[in-house]
């Protein structure tokens, strides 16, 4: 099994990538074949992520499944892959969301081949980021994950039109692209600075972890990582691309983007920002926690005022990512572990929500909360899943969101009781807009316009059931996830404490 272990991470990146390239050369007319083979490939990749999850030994901790390939000696770049307790849940999350995303995309007819090509290239980039232990390749894959978004949204997306409020999909695509690349400008500068200041002529994360950067350097360059990655993670006030982009994107891309790509940003903050520059992190954490609290409240309040179902979910993502920032900013074990668990939980939950909104939209061609009414009578399964997702979102015990948010709150209360209160108020506002939405859209009298609406197909139901299962499993039995995440967070905290 040793050879398998040493190639499994490589395969995670290579299989979606190679499939994406191969797909480009297949005839576009065989639509059913393209879908079936894509689903099969996605299933294989999902299997690999499950293998990584099971093979990772939490009791040992540290980086595992490490594998290095020579790439460019003169610049100190090696393709070095490995995972730790933080990246493994992210890898699993990506696998799950990708697989369900492929199933949800079944009904795409327009240029379906090109859609899957870009989708798989995006997935390859996301896996690449989570398994890279080299800053060059981290950034390589990071950019590669951002790149296909423009076309995915601009070509396959949908525009929002509420008369006075018109957001064409091209607007969302361009805004998202420019924001994200602007964020990566900061990251790129900071990465190069780390390379130069490290003075070892290498981009290897493992080697750079041994370097102690001067206090001044850390103080100047940590915010570059924090804001640069923060843009992708939806950090207030750089979040405004996120609702617009997610709303404009086609369903499976929203799922992947809100579910996984925003986590890339958060992952970058912890993996590179806090890990390499712990002193800078400590100095800047008061700022991050305030921004995170604003995220929570601002996102929740904005979500309350939306009429477009997808904008509600979009702003709720912004709000929930705030808990991730707050958890990071505590710099204590329980808060940070909670934040990482929140990344996983929110990823699954928001993917589920976007899938549900996609199902509703494809049946009614409407996302206006003012028009949708009493859908439960026609689409019972969808409504049931939406209730589960909504309750996760507002933090009902027994579902994954509760565990994660509770840990974040405990962590925050230790040092910042006032901000902790704000966080809880945010959760209360979430309950308001989620319950109101559920009541309006699903319950109450059925609008005769929606008489003919049909429920989710078996395939859609199956893919959403997978996501629901994860919400329940993590909520009821978080232990394996927590052990794993703790083993990943502990070394980073040691570096912070060792200052």
């Amino acid at each position, binding site marked *: 099994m040793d050879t398998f272990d040493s190639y499994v991470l490589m395969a995670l990146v290579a299989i979606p990538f190679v499939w994406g390239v191969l797909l480009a050369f297949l005839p576009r007319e065989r639509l059913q074949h393209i879908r079936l083979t894509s689903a099969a490939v996605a299933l294989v990749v999902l299997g690999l992520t499950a293998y990584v999850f099971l093979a990772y030994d939490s009791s040992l901790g540290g980086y595992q499944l490490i594998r290095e390939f020579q790439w460019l000696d003169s*610049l100190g770049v090696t393709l070095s892959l490995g995972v730790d307790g933080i990246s493994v849940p992210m890898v699993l999350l990506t696998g799950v969301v990708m697989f369900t995303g492929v199933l949800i995309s079944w009904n795409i007819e327009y240029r379906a081949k090109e859609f899957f090509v870009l989708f798989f290239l995006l997935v390859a980039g996301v896996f690449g980021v989570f398994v890279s232990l080299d800053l060059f390749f981290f*950034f390589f894959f990071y*950019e*590669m994950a951002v790149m296909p978004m423009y076309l995915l949204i*601009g070509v396959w997306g949908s525009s929002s039109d509420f008369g006075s409020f018109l957001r064409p999909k091209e607007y969302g695509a361009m805004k998202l692209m*420019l924001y994200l*690349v602007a964020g990566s400008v900061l990251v*790129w*500068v900071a990465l190069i600075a780390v390379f130069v200041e490290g003075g070892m002529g290498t981009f290897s994360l493992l080697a750079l972890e041994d370097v102690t950067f001067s206090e001044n350097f850390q103080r100047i360059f940590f915010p570059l990582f924090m804001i640069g990655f923060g843009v992708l993670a939806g950090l207030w006030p750089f979040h405004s691309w996120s609702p617009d982009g997610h709303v404009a994107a086609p369903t499976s891309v929203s799922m992947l983007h809100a579910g996984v790509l925003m986590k890339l940003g958060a992952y970058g903050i912890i993996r590179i920002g806090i890990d390499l520059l712990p002193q800078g992190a400590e100095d800047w954490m008061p700022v991050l926690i305030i921004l995170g609290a604003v995220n929570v409240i601002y996102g929740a309040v904005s979500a309350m005022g939306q009429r477009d179902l997808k904008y509600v979910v979009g702003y709720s993502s912004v709000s929930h990512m705030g808990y991730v920032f707050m958890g990071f900013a505590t710099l204590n074990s329980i808060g940070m572990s909670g934040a990482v668990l929140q990344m996983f939980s929110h990823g699954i939950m928001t993917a589920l929500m976007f899938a549900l909104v996609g199902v509703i939209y494809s049946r009614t061609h409407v996302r206006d909360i003012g028009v949708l009414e009493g859908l439960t009578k026609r689409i019972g399964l969808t409504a049931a899943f939406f209730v589960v997702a909504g309750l996760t979102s507002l933090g009902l015990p027994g579902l994954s969101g509760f565990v994660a948010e509770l840990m974040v709150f405990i962590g925050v209360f230790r040092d910042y009781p006032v901000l902790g209160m704000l966080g809880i108020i945010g959760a209360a506002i979430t309950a308001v807009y989620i319950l109101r939405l559920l009541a309006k859209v699903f319950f109450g009298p059925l609008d005769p316009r929606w008489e003919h609406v049909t429920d989710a197909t078996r395939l859609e139901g199956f893919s959403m059931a997978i996501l629901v299962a994860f919400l329940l499993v993590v909520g009821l039995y978080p232990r394996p996830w927590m052990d794993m995440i703790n083993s990943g967070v502990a070394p980073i905290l040691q570096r912070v404490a060792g200052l």
Partner: protein
Amino acid sequence: MNYLLFAPEFTLTAVAFAVLGVDLFLPRDKKGYLPALSVVGLIGVFVLSLRYLWGRDTDLYDGLFLIDNFSLFFKAFFLVLGVMVVLSSVDYVKKHLSRPGEYYGILIFSILAMMLMAASGELLTAYISLELLSFSLYVLVSYGRHGLKPSEAGVKYILLGAFASALLLYGISQVYGMLGTTRFDEIHAALLLEGTPLNPAVLVGLVLIIAGLGFKVAVVPFHMWAPDVYEGAPTPVTAYLAVGSKAAAFALILRLFSQAFMPAFDDWQIILVILAALTMTVGNLVAMAQQNIKRMLAYSSIGQVGYLLMGVAALSPLASNGVILHLVGYGGTNLLAFMCVIVFYNATNKEEIADFAGLADRSPFVAMAMSAALLSLAGLPFFAGFTTKFYLFTAAADGGLLWLVGLAITNSLISLYYYMMVMKQMYMVPADDNTPLNVSMFSCGVLGMLLAGVIIIGVYPGPLVNAIQAATKAILP
């Protein structure tokens, strides 16, 4: 003296004359043999160069020409470039230009000139090579048959080119007057002997040389000719201008500054830093406003010159590697972009950005190749542009220019915007006329080759970087 070392140059001259001569005897419908002959000749010289010059380190004519890995690397690069430009010209010349014999002949002469520029070890030799290149380009630029634009381009290029040459010559005479030599190694020694601060007269000469060369590579504020010339010239010539003449000038600049003017590093670094900052910013900002695809690519290539100049300003072995790597990566990418424009123009006779609307439906392959080129120019991964830019920027930051690197990366963001606008036309705006684009198999093959090159440099640059390191070692031991 071993004349064998000069065999590639002699052979290439013979090839050029052969193309011109054969043209006289070919009937009009058989002119298709000319590009074939040119390509065979160029590949022959390529093989010959690698066969005889590999690993040599010597000079010819008492140091006028240097035979080292640096000149060998650029010889090989220019010859490959020549092959690609000839291939991308075939359909265009057949459709839009008369007198293919002179076209290919002069093209080969200009490649010869570029090879000499990279190999020259003395200022006047460099100047004469540069003039051979410029004169060939003056002719090629005004080769178009119709309308005012080709003539305007030609006249503008000749007048400003001559002016630039005069500046360069004056600078050379100033340096010669003060230091008493024009050989690079002797200038180096003389400057070391003079010590600091640099004699103001030498500095004036140096500034004039920078200005003269700056004209040739379109450094802001000497860039005004570039957009008009790029727009008016036949598109394959534009591509050649954007890639070839820039690469040759940068080869000369690298050798000149590392082998001759290195002791005065502190004096010229600040000049290059300012020029680099100006060039990248102005080029990218103005590119946003362009409607014509060739003008947009012209301004974008001005932006790229800014990045390259930044590498020269941080001159070190790592930075030199970065500059050469980016030259190659940017060169391949730009050829790909221009090849797409050529293919599109051959089929539609249009070259405005708005004309690209709906290209993804009319020809998915060309749209994909164009997107790859644009994303590579913007510096996104797995295309050449990402890897070469990353290398170049890291090297410049390593040389202490982190703030300038920050500006360069910001400029990359700006450039992404206008490249995206082209992609938006191709993928999101429906076409007026939805007929599939008529692209020959041959053009598709050339596009495929260039696309493969751009991707290989992007994901597997190892072997190329090794060759570049060997080249750098020759000028910066």
